[in-house]
């Protein structure tokens, strides 16, 4: 017999489950460098940001800069970047890196405006060629998704990194 489950419990659960699935599918696309398919997940009004982090005096403002970013993209610049990857002259990633996205601690909630806010933890690893030392980044994603019924689209992503100086030779990937 089924215990009485409240509606909001079921709805929250369904939402989180769909969001989790969305993130896992997204990670697969990025890992497989299927950038065109990934692009299809991006909203027209996308804002994609990875702020530069500094070590500051406690109390003197956020360590995540609001002025300077590693990425500060809109839909159009995203397309440029993807065009480049899909073109024949993106030497930096030829042969491609092996990027992997361990997304965990996913928590989603529907906001009053109908959008879905998601907070998750990201462990990102990258290996190139025959190197044995990983490039690794850690941080948290603050995402806003628009519910499209069947799936979601990414409206806003802010990745707050733990890293001030990046141990990656470049950012020829997305976070």
């Amino acid at each position, binding site marked *: 017999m089924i215990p009485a489950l409240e509606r909001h419990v079921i709805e929250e659960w369904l939402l989180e489950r769909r969001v989790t699935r969305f993130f896992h599918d997204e990670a697969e696309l990025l890992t497989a460098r299927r950038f065109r398919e990934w692009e299809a997940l991006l909203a027209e009004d996308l804002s994609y940001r*990875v702020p*530069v982090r*500094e*070590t*500051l*005096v406690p109390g*003197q403002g956020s360590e995540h*800069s*609001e*002025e*300077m*970013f*590693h*990425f*500060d*993209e*809109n839909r*159009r*610049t995203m397309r*440029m*970047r993807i*065009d*480049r990857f899909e*073109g024949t*002259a*993106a*030497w*930096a*990633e030829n042969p491609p890196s092996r990027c992997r996205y361990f997304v965990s601690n996913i928590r989603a909630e529907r906001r009053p405006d109908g959008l879905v806010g998601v907070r998750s933890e990201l462990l990102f690893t990258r290996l190139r060629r025959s190197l044995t030392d990983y490039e690794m980044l850690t941080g948290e994603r603050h995402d806003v998704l628009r519910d499209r019924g069947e799936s979601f689209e990414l409206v806003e992503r802010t990745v707050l990194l733990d890293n*001030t*100086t*990046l*141990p*990656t*030779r*470049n*950012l*020829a990937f997305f976070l």
Partner: protein
Amino acid sequence: MQRTDIDAGLADRLREAEHKIRDGFIPTWIYNDPDVYRLERERLFTRAWVYLAHESELPHDGSFVVREIADTSVLVIRGSDGEIRTFLNQCTHRGAELCQYDRGRLSRFRCNYHAWQFNDRGQLIAVPFDKEVYGGIDRAALGLIPLAQSAVRQGFVFGCMDPGVPGIDEYLGDFLWYLPYATRRSAAGLEVFGPPQRWVVDADWKIASENLIADSYHTPFAHRSIFDVGLVPFSPTDAAPGGSKTGLHIRAGAADLAMIERPAGTYMGYPPEMVDTLRSGLDDAQVRLLDHGSLSGNGTFMNRFHVFPNLSCLNVGGFVDDGRLDPYMSLRQWRPLGPGRMEIISYLLVEADAPREFKERSRRAYLVSFGSSGMAEQDDMENWRTICDAGRSVGGGRVDQYVRMNSHREADLVLADWAGPGTAYASQYFDLPVQGFLLRWLSYLLDGVNADVDLPRRVPT
């Protein structure tokens, strides 16, 4: 400052390198060698003037940034008297690090170990139990240790650990005549927009410097993808030899700089007011160069410069949104971390009194093109890295690179009647500046300070 010894074997290797470089070849091992790195630390970065900060990063009393000269931590701070000073970031008692932050504003610094305190002018202002345990310490002798020399020129803060070398004006020399093209587009001068991006690459600071000094050759090939996606305001033809983007190279003081041709009425997307402001701050000769200095008599735009040893600046624009060209200016420092390894510190500079929207557009154009995620910068990283990787290997290190581009007509390239200071060349497609850079580098490693660096003599290929 004292220097460590250099053994005979190493001196021989460097002398051999010198001969090769003069002859148009670079032995690859110099880009990844522990002995070279040791000498760079001990003989070069202790004696050259090195860029530290921009004064716009230090707006208030007590504003500070912590920066590094090679591996040495330096506190750059504006004192309560308004003056900018530079100190070793180290307590004078037992040597603990004094300031643990990248940036901020503090009027006093308290050491975490025994609580000695220093003010924003570096003075030792508190020593616990002073009377009881030191009998009244000599505070004047134990203030923070200033860099031997430091100076601000057109907003740029430089420091030098050697008290015996000539001052900043002699060091920068003729370059100071050209610097206003970058700094005077606005009455308020330049400002650093936000903190710098920083990242670490397994590549040598010299190969990166050489690229910014004089590698017009790689642009149309290594960076073809950014032409492909419509980002850059040049055609491949512009970037080819003889093209408008590759007109003038100037060697001036401790710097190399590149001028490109600009069609009348344009200035890389900078608004006309800025060009007016710039023009009004220049002397007649400078204005002439600005408006008619190109080989064809068109105006010029200073596209990039490099100040020895490791400061580069790139000033260009990109088409990011709605067909408008957005200009940006990036200052970048190639900080050595070890053999074949550096940290890149990349700043965006904007005109301080420009509207916010201008700055943000500039930021977007910069981010898409250069910096940690920049589409052009990505490719450079891989090329530089593989060169340095080869340099470390026993076989690859012995390979002599070929730097004789246009050395068969080097004399022809010199512009005899150049109106500005320094030496101007009629092309950016030549390897002479790279040779000059490396000879200057060798002059530090092999002892002489800022010794006259003869330009290399070559034989035709």
